[in-house]
């Protein structure tokens, strides 16, 4: 029994699901001096995307997310992309070829995906104006963009409470 407990003790946290509060984090930002966290975006609908340069569907998704961001007002919606590359240069190389206008934060140690209990890459979360997960996507399908647009429109109309 002791061995069984030790066997499972090292497991990641259970996956954060829809309806749960999104775990807060603050990480160094790529290309900016100041770190950025979820709390800094309180009051906005936030799309958190976990990605890496070695992940094919992540690379496919990012230009689509950039189009989505560019088509929506910045005061109501933000994308926060958490890069989990071990090497910062890998992320920078990909972004040089596929630039995006949204914030990229760096988590080479993988602490934030561990806190969110990710079970695959890419995984993304749509978080409402009060910090609650309202949509979760695993993998990437082009149809997700239409779903996201509808959800964002809906969530942007909901009231934000004071933090």
């Amino acid at each position, binding site marked *: *029994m*002791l*061995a069984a407990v*030790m*066997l499972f003790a*090292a497991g*990641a946290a259970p996956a954060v699901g829809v309806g749960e509060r999104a775990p807060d984090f603050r990480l160094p930002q790529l290309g900016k001096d100041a770190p950025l966290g979820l709390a800094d975006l309180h009051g906005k609908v936030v799309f958190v995307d*976990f990605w*890496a340069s*070695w*992940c*094919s569907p992540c690379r496919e998704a990012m230009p689509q997310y950039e189009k989505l961001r560019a088509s929506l007002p910045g005061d109501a919606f933000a994308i926060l992309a958490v890069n*989990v*590359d*071990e090497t910062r240069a*890998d992320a920078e190389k990909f972004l040089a070829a596929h630039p995006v206008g949204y914030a990229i934060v760096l988590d080479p140690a*993988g602490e934030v*995906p*561990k806190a969110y209990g*990710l*079970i*695959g*890459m890419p*995984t993304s979360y749509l978080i409402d104006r009060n910090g609650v997960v309202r949509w979760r996507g695993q993998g990437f399908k082009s149809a997700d963009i239409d779903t996201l647009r509808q959800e964002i429109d809906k969530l942007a109309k909901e009231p934000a409470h004071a933090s």
Partner: protein
Amino acid sequence: MRPDLLLRLVCALACGASLAACATTPVQPWERAHLARWDMRWDPDSVQTAMKQHAYFSKEGSNGTIGAAGGGCGCN
């Protein structure tokens, strides 16, 4: 507690704890950078694989030996 019983208990606990050494740490989804490398793929170059299979089939006279559907009659 008798010393021999205590010794047995300690030995039993030590044996149980040593089983934990058999545990593996699973690779988490965000740690798969090396596994996602091109040269880590099962079939990194589909053209080269097709050529190798063609050579193999020709030498063995056994078309479809690598994963082809059929009943093994060699006629499909």
